[in-house]
């Protein structure tokens, strides 16, 4: 757990029933998507779905302070989705031997809002986990996903953090598992409209054409191979193709110049937030040298702001070797 063993002192002790501990939960953010569109489920029905680009360096931590005297959940103003998530999760535990009636949610987050990093999804996911934690229960990742979609209508799949999935973000179900992890990638992230925010739920869902549904099916096959064979080059092509289809719905300024910049520096392709303003230049992290400084300069020359440089998680063995050497 993010916060370690001790819970911080509650700001409103009157809401906290004596003797009850708090629950804690955490969730990472994401840097938009690698692919988003419409895809067939096992029954052949088309569903909106996406593949998330995780952003482990950012995230939300939630603390749930239960109350046995007050119904309802209070929390920071503006975080209605997180409050709603707490209420839905509390309902799940109604049959628990000692359920909380209501409570208060506190959230600490370093995820910017409205640019497509899933600030609300990480808040919501952390909250669901905190409420479950209070009840001494660890929900399955799919269950957290279902509750998150219930709370916020559409949700990226940051809660499913043990594999790469095609996630129906408005239904809260996994359509396909592509593999255990993404291939090693370095992603140079940027904001294509600095200062502008996108309110996800105010966007009309993209009205994909039937021809585009066929193209997404093709991208899905390529992504299946890219993840199974750790082919960053192919994965980059999938992300670029998905970004180009999305131009019809929420166009990114400077998409083609960014793709061109990425390819000029030997990158694999461009991923975007399909409901946000951020984009990321994808590189194969196994390459001997990636000129991230040059990329950053190129991004600034286009008038965009650099967000994050996402590096692949270091293999455990390296860390052990470093510890042994120190």
């Amino acid at each position: 757990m993010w916060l370690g063993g001790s819970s911080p002192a509650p700001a409103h002790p009157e809401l906290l029933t004596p003797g009850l501990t708090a629950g804690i939960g955490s969730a990472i953010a994401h840097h938009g998507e690698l692919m988003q569109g419409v895809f067939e489920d096992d029954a052949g029905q088309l569903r909106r779905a996406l593949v998330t680009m995780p952003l482990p360096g950012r995230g939300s931590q939630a603390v749930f302070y239960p109350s046995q005297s007050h119904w309802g959940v209070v929390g920071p103003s503006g975080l209605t989705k997180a409050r709603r998530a707490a209420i839905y999760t509390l309902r799940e535990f109604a049959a628990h031997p000692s359920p909380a009636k209501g409570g208060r949610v506190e959230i600490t987050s370093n995820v910017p809002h409205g640019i497509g990093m899933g600030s609300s999804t990480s808040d919501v996911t952390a909250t669901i986990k905190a409420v479950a934690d209070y009840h001494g229960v660890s929900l399955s990742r799919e269950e957290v996903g279902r509750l998150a979609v219930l709370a916020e209508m559409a949700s990226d799949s940051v809660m499913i953090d043990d594999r790469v999935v095609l996630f129906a973000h408005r239904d809260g179900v996994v359509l396909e598992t592509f593999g255990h992890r993404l291939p090693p990638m370095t992603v140079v992230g940027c904001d294509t409209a600095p200062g502008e925010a996108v309110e996800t739920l105010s966007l009309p869902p993209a009205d994909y054409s039937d021809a585009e549904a066929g193209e997404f099916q093709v991208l899905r096959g390529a992504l299946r191979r890219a993840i199974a064979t750790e082919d960053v080059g192919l994965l980059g092509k999938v992300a670029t193709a998905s970004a180009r289809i999305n131009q019809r719905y929420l166009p990114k300024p400077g998409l083609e110049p960014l793709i061109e910049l990425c390819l000029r520096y030997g990158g694999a392709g461009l991923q975007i937030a399909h409901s946000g303003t951020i984009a990321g230049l994808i590189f194969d992290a196994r390459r001997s040298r990636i000129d991230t400084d040059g990329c950053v300069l190129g991004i600034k020359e286009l008038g965009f702001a650099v967000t994050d440089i996402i590096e692949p998680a270091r293999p455990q063995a390296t860390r052990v070797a470093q510890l042994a050497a120190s």
Partner: protein
Amino acid sequence: MSLRGSFAEATDAYQLPKLIRLDKNLYAACFTLMKMIPARFILRRAAQQGRLDPGTVIVETTSGTFGLALAMQAVHMDRRLILVSDPVIDERLYRRLTDLGAVVERVPAEAAKTAGGYQAARLDRLEQIMTDLDAAFCPRQYSNPDNPRAYSIVAEYLLECLGQIDCITGPVGSGGSMCGTVGQLRALLPECRAVGVDSHSSVLFGHPDGPRELRGLGMSLMPDNLNHRIFDQVHWVAPAAAYTATRQLHQRHALFMGPSSGAAYLAGRWWAQANPDALTVVMMPDEGYRYQDTVYDDDWLAARGHLGQPLPAEPVMVDDPAQPSGSWMAYDWARRAYHEVMSPVAAAQGEPG
């Protein structure tokens, strides 16, 4: 990672080709019955959209494999099927179609002597049947956009298997398989080349219409589903060359396919050799069983003068696609519209050709 399972129904088992490596940069996508892809897709989508309820009769004019695919899918869906054909329909195919429950109507032999021949007579009869029925559904493979759309499953499969594809070669008839597969593949690989294979005396890419012996490719009428802008290059293969290539495919690679597959193999093999760093896939639409008494019979070939003719090492590259030349010719179509190729001067002035 995935567990191999069973198919829900027989036609489901016909969806994906067998992808077979012929050379270091050449693969064959072998279908048992490629027309099953549009037939199944079109009928299932029509049912989903409420255009093919249990009382609706499926009506189509065909004397080929599209009819067989419709008949098989109609069994699964428990729908009546009427196929309008002509007296030259293959007798074995006729027996198989009727065994599957299809009603096969043959227009009278006299129709061959009237204007428009069998094709016009069949279309007239089709319209008559549609009018007489309370509820009818016609798949219309030559104009229905669901025909090319159905091939997304093939493009998905090719990419999953190969990742990178630089060229797809295949026979062209309705336009569905090549335009659908390549068109959708280009969402990911916009540079992927398309090499279409046609037959002499087919109107598809500009030859004057005439009698054609080679089956499974070429047309006398221009189908709406043929998007000429898909194609980088077009080959025309005469019957003898197609038959010889079909037999070579069998003799060298043990692949027992039909003559349209052989024609595509000839063009694809040449393209792969000329582009050794590029990966080429050849679409092979059906198997050899229907041609055992013809293409696979030396006596039949000899009687037509097709036996022992040497296969040209390369096509004759032509500057004018409308001028038939040699037994194997090719033209750089360069992803242009039909009128841009046929009337370049008019097209440059912005007039339709």
